[in-house]
């Protein structure tokens, strides 16, 4: 399988009030082109830090990341146009309409105007927001915001979509709709990288799952293999087995 993301010996250390905090400790993995890759782990496991490094928002302390062959440290300007990001905070301008939010992203990704307008109409219809295009995003429900946030990330037709906690706080219907959307994008050949707290989501959606704990990667395999290896019937048991029962801050 063709590798699209290569992570080698990744370390991220933060310094806070004289304390050294190792958020990510010597993590290596590959993501294959066209797969849905999930990262799961309790709070403080290092998922979001890895997510920020993969999306070029922060730089690693040590180690290397290559996305589509580009070095995340030195060639972040080549990576950004080919990735789409759905952040955990939905990050929409509340005083802009849905269409204006989309236009802003389209322009910042330099999508040609005509193509951008076609895609905006197409995606708004696809996620059921066609009749809400000219409403302010601030007045949207959580589910509507999530759907708008997703299409903001794909307007420039990225090769890879990074998706932080896709269905946190959503009702079952919206969650199903989001999963359907994820499968659709994956069916179009896009690679998806998720972080999630929901084992059901990882089990249903992901081709492979990386389990993170305390900054380290403790397992990486398909959901089926992970379950088989630990003799569990569901991914939640595997998760508890690998990361322990202790509640994290």
């Amino acid at each position, binding site marked *: 399988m063709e590798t699209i993301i290569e992570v080698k010996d990744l370390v991220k250390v933060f310094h806070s009030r004289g304390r050294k905090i190792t958020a990510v400790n010597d993590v290596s993995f590959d993501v294959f082109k066209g797969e849905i890759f999930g990262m799961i782990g309790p709070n403080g496991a290092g998922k979001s830090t890895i997510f920020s490094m993969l*999306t*070029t*928002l*922060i730089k690693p302390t040590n180690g290397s990341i290559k996305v589509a062959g580009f070095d995340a440290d030195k060639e972040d*300007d080549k990576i*950004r*146009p080919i990735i789409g*990001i759905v*952040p*955990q*905070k*939905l*990050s*929409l*301008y*509340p*005083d*802009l309409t849905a269409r*204006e939010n989309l236009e*802003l*992203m389209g*322009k*910042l*990704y*330099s999508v040609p105007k005509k193509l951008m307008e076609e895609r905006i109409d197409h995606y708004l219809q696809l996620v059921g927001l066609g009749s809400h295009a000219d409403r*302010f995003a601030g007045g949207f429900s959580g589910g509507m915001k999530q759907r708008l946030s997703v299409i*903001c990330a794909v307007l420039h037709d990225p090769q890879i979509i990074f998706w932080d906690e896709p269905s946190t706080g959503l009702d079952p219907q919206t969650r199903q709709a989001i999963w359907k959307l994820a499968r659709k994008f994956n069916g179009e050949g896009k690679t998806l990288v998720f972080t999630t707290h929901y084992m059901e989501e990882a089990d249903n959606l992901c081709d492979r799952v990386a389990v993170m704990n305390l900054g380290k990667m403790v397992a990486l395999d398909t959901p089926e293999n992970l379950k088989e290896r630990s003799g569990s019937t569901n991914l939640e048991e595997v998760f508890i087995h690998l990361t322990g029962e202790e509640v994290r801050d």
Partner: protein
Amino acid sequence: MDVRTELQHSWIITVKEFRQLSRKKALMVPLFLFPIIMIIFFGYGMGGTVKDAPILIVNDDTGTASNSLIQHIGSYTGKYGGEPMFSITYTKDMSQSKAESKIDAGWYKAVLLIPPDYSEKLAKNESVTLILLTDSSDTTTTGIIVNYMKQLFSERGSVSLNVPNIYGDLEYLDFLTPAVIALTIFMGSVATTGSAIAGEKQDGTIVRILMTPVSRRAVILGKTIYQLILQLIRAAILIMAAYFLVGFHMNGSWLLVALVLVIFTLGGVGMGIVMSTRVNDMESFFQLNMLVTLPSMFITGVFFPLSSVPDWMRYIAYLLPLTYANDAMRTIMIKGQGLSAISTDLIILSLFALITFTAGVHLFRREA
């Protein structure tokens, strides 16, 4: 990334900022109306006292009457006592135009010209006229000086005082308006830049923008262009309101006013960015903003001349950039002076802009 794309990205951010502003109707009213209200309210009836005001006495008289007059002026402490009201420098053989140039340069608040025949005419009980030139760009201080002098000479019978208005017929409002514009631009650029970034941090939108191919440089440039346009529009509205509503006099160059405001806005934007990098939400930003900008409003001589405040307050004022913006704006708008008269102010304001802007860009780039 090429410059053209960077500029295109910056302009997209600028347009987005304006579009967001147009949706915040509740913000538009205070943004444009607050400074106008301030001018109207403060423009009537501000008083004050003066101490140590620098005065030049050009004494061409050799008699004793002028000596007694000078002694009287030098020892005057005002009705509440304390330090002398005037700090006097003496000279002789100076023309009126030369004396005016000393006021233009900001060395003296007033120049009193005593004619050669002052003592002689006073001895013969003949009428004699003295000329008092004042820096009427500082209406509070000169108002007090003129009142004192008029009272002094009214006690001396045949002596009359000629007070030419070298900058025209000015009122407190003329003193106030240039500084209120500087204050408005300062508080506006710091608050709107900082709160916008703090708000975008709070709702995560800034992170989303920074994840796109747009450079941090382009984001900052876009926000800065927006601020420059917005603050210049505010200043123009304010000047027009002051002109049409309360009869403000503009004696100087609009271009110089714009230059000062552009440099000062850059400093304000830089300061707003620096402050926004220190907080994570809008509420914290507004607390910090109050702490940083409010003292400037009261200490830097916006509402009263620095000559009327205690020394310690004046020393603090000299550390605050608004003091220099106020001085530059008054020198241009009231005195009608050119670039050379505000060169020191411009150097200090440029340094302020350079330091805050560089720090802002550095911290903003490092933060995310």
